[in-house]
């Protein structure tokens, strides 16, 4: 049936969600004693695949052969019983219970039918010691550091006799020292024959730890094989879906020519935006009439930078200057008053108010400045809404239709209208064309060009490399929360962006101040 040397063999795994094919005939083979990397950008299907392997989802079709037998996990417990242990990003432990209880949850040592607390605590301390974690095991788990929590999860998986360990971005909130400890532990586990599926966006870690790699894109496997044979640039190209030798000369997007705006005074200057584990001293200058692209892989800090600029992400330090004046207290309200607006990445969670009408969604941010004594003239509202529905060609039955009933593209246009009717100086667009149909996408791209031509400063974030390169006059490339390259004029190109993404990571210790 299957090679005895494989622990898990997934073949043709397919999973469909309403409207989306999340996984399309995905194959994955995991071998004992090896660390296998699973990479891909947003929406590639990594989480869906992990959830199927760990029993949280059920595949629509395809086969999973585990230890030589075809298996079908009905629930996570079955996968655990079969020796597959998953450590999620948000650690799935119980914060209010003690470290020792978390470690032994469900397998507590007993004495006379009761939990033998003393033995449990003693053994827990001994186990964690081996993982380099020295904490009081009777303390609630929530009071110890994230790195130590990650280790507890790991120790628990091992103690459960797991033979396959799935780790979903385990290092995203760890200190460099903790990352080292984690790697040592993972290496010792594989030496004992455990198979590890390792999900991460940090190329550095992948090349350090993993022997083989599977790259997913749009639900399909686009590459699988030994990692050592793949140079960084090619790996990045696979992830972003760009073929290196045939980067197209003529684009398919609706963006016009690049322009040079270095003469214009900066509209917004951000300096040293810093937040622990997220941003490390990001600086960004945006000029009138210029589209500044933010490039980077998933988790590089692009959305976070945009949010920080408009005060929606509390910072440890950093300044934002608009039109030469430094904003004193950063908050969305002050940012809007200063003329900045952010179109958020997650339209449903942070953008639309689904039960309110198109009219009310468009005017949500403008309402305070339109109102007289707490009331807003209905006629005035309707005039503004009519202007923008026409200009952005929003298709709705009427301005009173609920926004939740519109298509994704029209919802996005409603959100654009919400910001444009404030007449901003700087518009930050986070994935403005994600999840909208082709027609609306072209319209939004054309609109971005038009706005910039009218003198608006635009920050464009897009995981679609082609859109980014053709839309932006200038690109700032981020990696691991820091600016690693700034591309201007003729340097703006897909190859240059990918090269910047693939470069060796800056040494973290130099940049961190902790």
């Amino acid at each position, binding site marked *: 049936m299957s090679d005895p040397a494989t622990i898990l063999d997934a073949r043709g795994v397919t999973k469909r969600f309403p409207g989306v094919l999340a996984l399309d005939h995905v194959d994955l083979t995991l071998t004992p004693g090896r660390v296998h990397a699973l990479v891909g950008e947003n929406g590639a299907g990594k989480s869906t695949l992990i959830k199927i392997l760990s029993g949280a989802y059920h595949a629509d079709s395809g086969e999973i052969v585990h230890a030589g037998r075809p298996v079908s996990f009905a629930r996570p417990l079955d996968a655990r019983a079969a020796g597959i242990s998953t450590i999620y990003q948000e650690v799935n432990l119980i914060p209010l219970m003690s470290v020792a209880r978390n470690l032994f949850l469900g397998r507590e040592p007993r004495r006379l039918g009761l939990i033998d607390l003393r033995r449990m605590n003693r053994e827990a301390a001994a186990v964690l010691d081996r993982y380099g974690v020295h904490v009081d095991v009777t303390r609630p788990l929530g009071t110890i550091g994230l790195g130590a929590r990650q280790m507890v999860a790991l120790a628990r998986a091992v103690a459960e006799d797991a033979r396959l360990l799935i780790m979903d971005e385990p290092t995203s909130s760890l200190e460099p020292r903790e990352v080292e400890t984690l790697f040592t532990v993972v290496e010792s586990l594989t030496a004992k024959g455990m198979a590890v599926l390792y999900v991460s966006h940090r190329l550095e870690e992948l090349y350090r730890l993993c022997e083989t790699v599977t790259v997913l894109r749009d639900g399909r496997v686009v590459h699988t094989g030994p990692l050592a044979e793949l140079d960084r640039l090619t790996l990045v190209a696979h992830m972003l879906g760009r073929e290196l030798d045939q980067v197209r000369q003529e684009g398919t997007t609706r963006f016009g020519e690049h322009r040079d705006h270095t003469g214009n005074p900066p509209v917004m200057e951000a300096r040293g935006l810093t937040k622990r584990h997220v941003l490390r001293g990001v600086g960004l200058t945006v000029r009138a009439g210029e589209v500044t692209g933010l490039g980077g892989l998933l988790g590089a800090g692009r959305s976070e930078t945009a949010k920080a600029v408009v005060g929606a992400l509390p910072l440890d330090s950093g300044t934002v200057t608009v039109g030469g004046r430094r904003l004193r207290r950063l908050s969305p309200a002050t940012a809007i008053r200063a003329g900045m607006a952010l179109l958020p990445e997650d339209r449903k969670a942070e953008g639309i108010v*689904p039960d309110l009408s198109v009219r009310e969604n468009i005017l949500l941010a403008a309402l305070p400045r339109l109102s007289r004594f707490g009331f807003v003239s209905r006629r005035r509202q309707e005039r503004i809404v009519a202007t923008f529905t026409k200009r952005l060609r929003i298709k709705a039955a009427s301005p009173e239709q609920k926004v939740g*009933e519109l298509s994704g593209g029209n919802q996005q246009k409603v959100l654009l209208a919400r910001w444009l009717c404030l007449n901003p100086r700087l518009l930050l667009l986070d994935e403005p064309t994600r999840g909208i149909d082709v027609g609306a996408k072209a319209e939004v791209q054309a609109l971005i060009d038009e706005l910039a031509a009218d003198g608006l400063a635009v920050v464009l974030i897009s995981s679609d490399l082609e859109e980014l390169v053709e839309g932006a006059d200038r690109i700032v490339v981020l990696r691991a929360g820091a600016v690693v390259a700034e591309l201007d004029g003729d340097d703006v190109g897909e190859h240059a962006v990918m090269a910047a993404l693939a470069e060796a990571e800056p040494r973290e210790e130099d940049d961190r101040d902790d």
Partner: protein
Amino acid sequence: MTTDTAPALGGRRAALPRLVSDYGVYAAVLVLLAYNAVFTPYFLDAGNLRTQLVQAAPIVIVALGMALVIGSEGIDLSVGSVMALAAAVIPLYLGFGMWPAVLMALLAGIAAGLFNGTLVAVVGLQPIVATLALLVAGRGLALVFAGGQLKQLHNPELLALGDGELAGVPVIVLAAAGLTLATAILVGRTTYGRQLVAVGGNRPAAVLAGLPVRRILITAYVLCGLFAAVAGVFATARLTASDPSAIGNLAELSAITAVVVGGTPLTGGRVRVLGTVAGAMLMQLVRATLIKHDLPDSAAQMAQAAIILVAVYVARERRTR
């Protein structure tokens, strides 16, 4: 995941539950009225209808404030205790006359609302926990004010609030109607009302749109406290006594019931003012109908429970569209 739902399609599938959720409460009130008109002797008597309205009025007033808070994706468990607090404050200041006493009672309600709102919006406690504190402490405080005793009230002006009438309509019913109108305008027409609904509908979006979310939330709780105090004043006047241990008992549950039965989802983002009034009326009519047919009060309570379940179930259907 992005799913582009064509308007017509989504609309039709959700049509029935939405109709029931939006208009079911009015239909239920009409059905009960029709039933009683036929089967209950003297039900349509002016005197009886008047009694029904007078009995429902305090709950209507409390429920209006509750609807605002629930629309903001919150809840206020303390309204019954705030009613008691208002009742306890009245005799302390009645020596200065009716108006000073009422004013102080209303201020007590506003203070309670400020306390709740601050805990929710500034400290960031969950509304159910934040207001639970005052549910317990408020009545305790009221009992301390009152010295743990019922006080008979004799101020004629105050008592007139309870049994007086204007142009043949009881003052308390007029007050409830006036507050209903004011709340409807607040929610439907003012900037504040629309912002409140937006905060309840999608708080992260409201924050990103630069709305003063804290101020909006605190105001909702202050209004809720104020409305509860108004209800407390009327309840005291009708009882002709300040009885902090009895006034407003379980009012929070009646108010939440009226709001939910009226079609306001507990998940926020929507405030149905007239629906809330109808919800309060419905619960009142159910009780009256059963009692007039000599069924015990316990049967009425079970009927109310059944209605709540139906209302919540229908709302759930609509949500999972």
